């Protein structure tokens, strides 16, 4: 853990060397998702609701998945950039060090400019929460925190899976973006609006539905069943990291260096 923070501070200082570039990039990172939110807002000017959810409810859905995404993109970017390590044979260096591979890959890259996207999502969340009249209690707050944490963990898991894939092939690896970027875009709307197979895929296989849609039904009082069940759903989503880690370990075992 100490080592992780060491990596963190080194990379923070190195990125701060190019301050203007960093600021511009952060602003860009702010506006990319913001334009999506604006279009969502404009669509709601024309249409009243989507699948029974109004603007503020969808905005909350949007904010939570984007917070999860931005945090994981900041801290787990190493896995996202991993294919290039394999191509250049740099993974060998990581293997010979007496520390865990996961820690080292995580520590190899942080994208602090994601603060732009993160702050954008926080603003949207505050906007949504002000306009929604939710009766907050302790359990709901805990659920909300779990949801965000679960988002971070699931995105990290997906990055890991994508990185693992690069042990076997690096061609066409951008198809993994369907799950990362695509999953993010999909789950910024409640999953209920999609076809059944899409809903099932993003609930049981890559569980983005457990990050915002299902627990939000509880927070927004849309359920008529067992509240506690919906409350612990984000925890189930977090379990996704376990098979991801196992597959990663399996991949590392089968790694053959490119040798250069």
């Amino acid at each position, binding site marked *: 853990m100490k080592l992780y923070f060491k990596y963190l501070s080194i990379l923070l200082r190195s990125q701060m060397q190019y301050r203007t570039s960093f600021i511009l990039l952060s602003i*860009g990172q702010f506006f990319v998702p913001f334009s999506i939110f*604006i279009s969502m807002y404009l669509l709601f000017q*024309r249409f009243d609701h989507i699948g029974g959810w109004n603007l503020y409810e969808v905005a909350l859905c949007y904010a939570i998945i984007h917070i999860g995404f931005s945090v994981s993109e900041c801290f787990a970017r190493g896995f996202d950039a991993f294919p290039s390590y394999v191509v250049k044979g740099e993974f060998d260096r990581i293997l010979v060090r007496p520390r865990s591979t996961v820690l080292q890959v995580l520590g190899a890259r942080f994208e602090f400019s994601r603060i732009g996207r993160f702050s954008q999502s926080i603003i949207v969340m505050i906007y949504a929460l002000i306009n929604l009249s939710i009766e907050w209690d302790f359990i709901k707050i805990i659920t909300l925190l779990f949801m965000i944490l679960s988002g971070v963990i699931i995105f990290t898991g997906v990055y890991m899976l994508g990185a693992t894939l690069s042990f076997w092939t690096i061609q066409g690896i*951008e198809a993994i973006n369907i799950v990362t970027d695509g999953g993010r875009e*999909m789950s910024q709307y409640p999953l209920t609006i999609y*076809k059944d197979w899409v809903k099932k895929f993003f609930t049981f296989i890559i569980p983005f539905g457990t990050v915002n849609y299902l627990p939000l039904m509880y927070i927004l009082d849309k359920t008529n069943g067992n509240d506690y069940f919906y409350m612990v759903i984000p925890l189930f989503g977090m379990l996704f990291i376990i098979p991801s880690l196992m597959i990663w370990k399996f991949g590392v075992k089968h790694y053959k260096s490119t040798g250069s």
Partner: protein
Amino acid sequence: MSAYISLFKMRLMQGLQYQVAAFAGVLTQFFWGFMYIMIYQAFYQSTTNVQPISLHQLIVVVWLQQSFLALIMLWFRDNEIISLILKGDIAYELCRPADLYGFWYSRLIAQRLSSALLRFVPILLVASLLPYPYRFSLPDNVITFLLFLITLFLGLIIVVAISMLIYISMFYTLSGVGSLLIFGVLGEFLSGLIIPVPLMPHSLKIIVYLLPFRYCSDLPFRIYAGNIGYHEAILSIFAQIFWIILLFLIGKLWIKKALKRVVIQGG
């Protein structure tokens, strides 16, 4: 001129080699297409009001956007040109007995074409086999189709002319990524790729119609879908030609000015 054409051919052939990347691209585009369609479908179900574009027309537009993405995206970036400017290899380019604007222009347009050629056939083919609400259909008649082809082609010329301006601006900023990102998002939004132009509120539509961005994707695709009539289509072709002349002029003058004070980045 023949130098530009052979460069164009070379780049085109080179781009056509990347078939696996194209396959992954097709898959991704399919996914996005489906997603947008499902979202619009859900929105349309929530109201009985008649919208300025029918759901079926919108679906056709979505599929066209996905399959011709490489022709219409602003951020389709050429890292080689960026590094030429940033690392100083621009010096070699300046030694060539060719006009830099034309040289880069033909290179950029070839890249877009090769990328689009590999992608649009499979996407449209599969999309036209889908069951009803998702199906991509042929235009009503030949004239519509011809108008679509003409406006799409002129639109491509506009997109590349705009992206040339972005590259030229890098002579001044020397760090592309941030400004490219902001420019890209803005252009995407104003060309109706994030929210379709007909669904925008009125005041925003006025701004969009005054800028060149929508002439690259919104115009040809809505002509194809039958959302824009002949009369407006023909008037818009003149608008496209106007933008092409204007953007070429600005680009040529600007690159001349930029090259006068160009600093070769050493190393």
